[in-house]
C-alpha cells in the first residue's frame, strides 16, 4: 500500500543513531545586505514531527526553501538519508512543500486536486483517483471530493492541499506555517489532526511556525531559531522548562515568563534577593551562582507563583491588572522592585481588584537563572 514506508523508518529510533531523514550542517544564506541564515545545523529524525520555531524574520522560510532546493545556499551541506542534495533540482529531492496559502486549482474538484500529482507522474486516471479517494478517507474529507474549492471551508481546503502533497508519498514534508491563515479554533483542531496523520503514515515532517503553542502541541523535537541561528534543540517540555536563554524563555509560554532582577549573596549559606524579598538558594542554582556574577536575572513561570497568607508569604505586592481567561485568570502585581504575573483560578481572581494588596509564595525549585548581560542560561 502506498502509505507504507520503507523499512528504514520502522527501524530508526526517534532519537537517531542511524542516518536521520534530513541533516543540515552549517547552512548560511545572505540576501544582499541581510544575513538570512548563519551557520544553521540540525537533524530531523526519521518519522518525526520536527518543528522550526521562531519569530518572524528568524530564517524559518529561508531554511525550508534551501532544503527544498528553491534557493541556492552560500555555504553548508544538506543530506537526506545520507545522500548529499547539492546540485539536485527541487523535483529530484523527494520532498513535498506545503505553504500557508493553500493554493488549490479553483476549477478542479477536491478529488482532481488530490489526484493531480499522480496524473502528472503518469498513473492511470482510475488508479490516481482510487488513491486520491483513499487519501481523502484518511483525512476525513470524502464528502468534498466532488466539490470545487470555493465551496469548501478553510479547514477542508487545507486538508485537500495536504492530501495533494501526501498522495505523492515523498520522503520529507516541508510545511511553512500551514495553519496560520486559519481561525484560532480551527487551527487548534487541525494541528491535532496533523499530528495524528503524521503518526498514522509515519512520514517525516519539518514544520515552520511562529506559534509556540502549536510547536509544543505537535512537535517531537523543536528547533528554536532566532536571528538566523539555532538557539536550542529540545523536546517541547524541555524547551519550556529549561530554555537556553532569556529570549527563548520569553518566546515560549503564555502568559509570558517573569524575568526579575536578582542578586546572589554568598554569606551565611547564601541568599537570593529578588522582588524585594530574601530567599534561600535552591539546590539546582547553588553551584552555578557561586561561579557567576552576583547579579542575575531570575526566570519565574507564572504558574510557579501563588497567592498565600501574609504570614507564610515571601513577596508582598499590589494588584495592577486582572485578565480573565475562562477557567483561569492572569493576575499582574507589582511592588517597588518587580512586576510579576501569576495564574490563578478565575473564582479566586474575581475577589480581587486593581490596587488590592496581595502576598505571594514562589516555588524556588522551579526558577531559572539567566546571565544579566548575555541572557544565557546559568542554571
Amino acid at each position, binding site marked *: 500500500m502506498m502509505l507504507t514506508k520503507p523499512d528504514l523508518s520502522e527501524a530508526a529510533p526517534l532519537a537517531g543513531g542511524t542516518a536521520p531523514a534530513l541533516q543540515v550542517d552549517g547552512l548560511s544564506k545572505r540576501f544582499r545586505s541581510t544575513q538570512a541564515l548563519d551557520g544553521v545545523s540540525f537533524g530531523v529524525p526519521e518519522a518525526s514531527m520536527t518543528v522550526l520555531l521562531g519569530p518572524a524574520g528568524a530564517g524559518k522560510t529561508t531554511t525550508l526553501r534551501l532544503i527544498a532546493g528553491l534557493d541556492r545556499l552560500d555555504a553548508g551541506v544538506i543530506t537526506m538519508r545520507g545522500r548529499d542534495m547539492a546540485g539536485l533540482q527541487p523535483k529530484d529531492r523527494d520532498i513535498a512543500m506545503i505553504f500557508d496559502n493553500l493554493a488549490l486549482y479553483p476549477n478542479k474538484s477536491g478529488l482532481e486536486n488530490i489526484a493531480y500529482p499522480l496524473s502528472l507522474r503518469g498513473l492511470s486516471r482510475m488508479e490516481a483517483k482510487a488513491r486520491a479517494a483513499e487519501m481523502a478517507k484518511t483525512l476525513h474529507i470524502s464528502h468534498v471530493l466532488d466539490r470545487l474549492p470555493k465551496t469548501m471551508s478553510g479547514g477542508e481546503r487545507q486538508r485537500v492541499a495536504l492530501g495533494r502533497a501526501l498522495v505523492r508519498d515523498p520522503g520529507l514534508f516541508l510545511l511553512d506555517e500551514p495553519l496560520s491563515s486559519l481561525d484560532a479554533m480551527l487551527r487548534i483542531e487541525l494541528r491535532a489532526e496533523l499530528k495524528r496523520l503524521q503518526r498514522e503514515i509515519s512520514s517525516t515532517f519539518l514544520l515552520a511556525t511562529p*506559534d*509556540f503553542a502549536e510547536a509544543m502541541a505537535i512537535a517531537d523535537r523543536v528547533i528554536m531559531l532566532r536571528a538566523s541561528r539555532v538557539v536550542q534543540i529540545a523536546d517541547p*517540555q524541555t524547551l*519550556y522548562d529549561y530554555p537556553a536563554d532569556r529570549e527563548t524563555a520569553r518566546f515560549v509560554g503564555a502568559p*509570558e515568563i517573569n524575568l526579575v532582577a536578582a542578586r546572589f549573596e554568598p554569606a551565611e549559606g547564601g541568599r537570593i534577593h529578588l522582588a524585594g524579598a530574601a530567599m534561600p538558594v535552591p539546590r539546582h542554582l547553588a553551584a552555578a551562582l557561586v561561579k557567576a556574577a552576583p547579579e542575575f536575572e531570575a526566570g519565574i513561570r507564572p504558574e510557579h507563583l501563588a497567592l498565600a497568607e501574609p504570614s507564610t508569604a515571601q513577596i508582598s505586592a499590589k494588584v495592577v491588572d486582572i485578565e480573565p481567561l475562562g*477557567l483561569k485568570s492572569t493576575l499582574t502585581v507589582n511592588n517597588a522592585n518587580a512586576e510579576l504575573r501569576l495564574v490563578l483560578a478565575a473564582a479566586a481572581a*474575581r475577589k480581587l481588584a486593581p490596587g488590592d494588596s496581595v502576598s505571594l509564595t514562589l516555588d524556588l525549585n522551579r526558577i531559572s537563572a539567566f546571565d544579566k548581560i548575555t541572557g544565557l542560561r546559568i542554571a
Partner: protein
Amino acid sequence: MTAPKLELIGLRKDFTGGAIPAVDGVHLTVAAGETLALLGPSGCGKSTTLNLIVGMEEPSSGDIRIDGRSVVGLAPAARNIGLVFQDYAVFTHMTVAQNLAFGLSVRGQSKAEIAKAVGEVAELLGMGDRLRARARDLGGSELQRVAIGRTLVTKPAILLLDEPLSNLEAGARLTMRRELRRLQREIGLTIIYVTHDQIEALSLADRIAVMSAGKIRQIDKTATVYDTPDHVFVASFLGSPPMNLVRGRIERGAAGPVFQEQGLVLPLGAVAAARIVPPGEPVILGIRPEALGLLPTGDAPLQAKVTLVEPRGPETVVTVETGGVALKVVTGGAERPQEGQAVGVAADPASFILFSGESNRRLVA
C-alpha cells in the same frame, strides 16, 4: 430611563446569491460604557453586523439605534462611530502627531483645539513622548495604538474594534489587551469588539455575543457564556481545548439515567437535566477537559487508551479513547502518559452539560 447606547433590532442582511442571510435577525443592546464582544468564526456574520452598524452596508430589514435614534440611512460619517481594524491604516509618511490630528484637521478644527486634543489622547495612550516619531519607525503595537488614538480624538459615541490585535505578535497582543483594559477603566467608552479569538473576548468583554451562521447563539455575561453555554456551538467555541461534545442517548440505568454512546456509559444521576429526557432520546453530552482526570487503570471507573499527548508547558492535553469515544483530558504538566498507554479516566458529573441532539440547545431541568 435613558436609552441604551446601541440597539440592534431584528437586524437582517441578505446578499444576492447568498444561500442564507449573512445576518439573520440579530437583536442586541449595548449599555453606555459597556464592552460587548462579537465572537465567532470567519463567515459567521460578525463583520457584516459591524459594517451595518458603521453604515458601510445597509440592512435588508431591522433597525439600528444609537442613543435611541435610528441611524439607518445616515452616512457613516454622521453616525459618530469610531472604527479600528487589524490593518492599522496609519499614514506611515506622517508623524504620530500628524496621524492623531488627521481626523480633526479634515473636520476643520482650529490648530489650538487640535493640539490640545492630540496631546490628551497621546497622554492617555502613553505616547506623549512619541508625538514626533515617524509612523514608519513604529512597531506593530505602537501603530495600533496610533490607530486607536486617531479614532479617540474624534470623541466617538461608540468604538468598534474589528480584530484589532490580529496582526500583532503574541507578546504585543498581551500588552495591548492590558492597555485596552486600562483605557476601558479610564475613559469608560462603549466598545463593540469583533474577534474570532476567545482569549480576546474573555479578557476584554463585559458580555459576549457568540455568533454562527448569521445568528446570535448566546449573549450574556462573559463568565456565564463560558460556564454555561446555551448552545452546542457556543460550547465548541470556548475553552482551550473546548468542551468534549459527545453525541449519544439517555438510557435508564439501575441507579438513574445514564448517558450511552457505543461502549461509553456514564451515570448521570448528578445531572438534573438528564431526568427530564425520555429514554432513547438523542443528546449531546458536554464535558470540560478540566473535569476529567487520569488515574491508574486499576481503580478507575473508565478504562481508556491514550491516543495523543499535547504538552502545553504548565499542563498537558491528553486525548484518550474509551468505549470507542475520543475524549480530551487536561492534566498537570508533570503527569504525562505515553501514546498507546492504557489509563483510567475519572469524570466529575457535576460539571456535565446536556444539550438536545435535535435543537443543539442546552437542556434545563
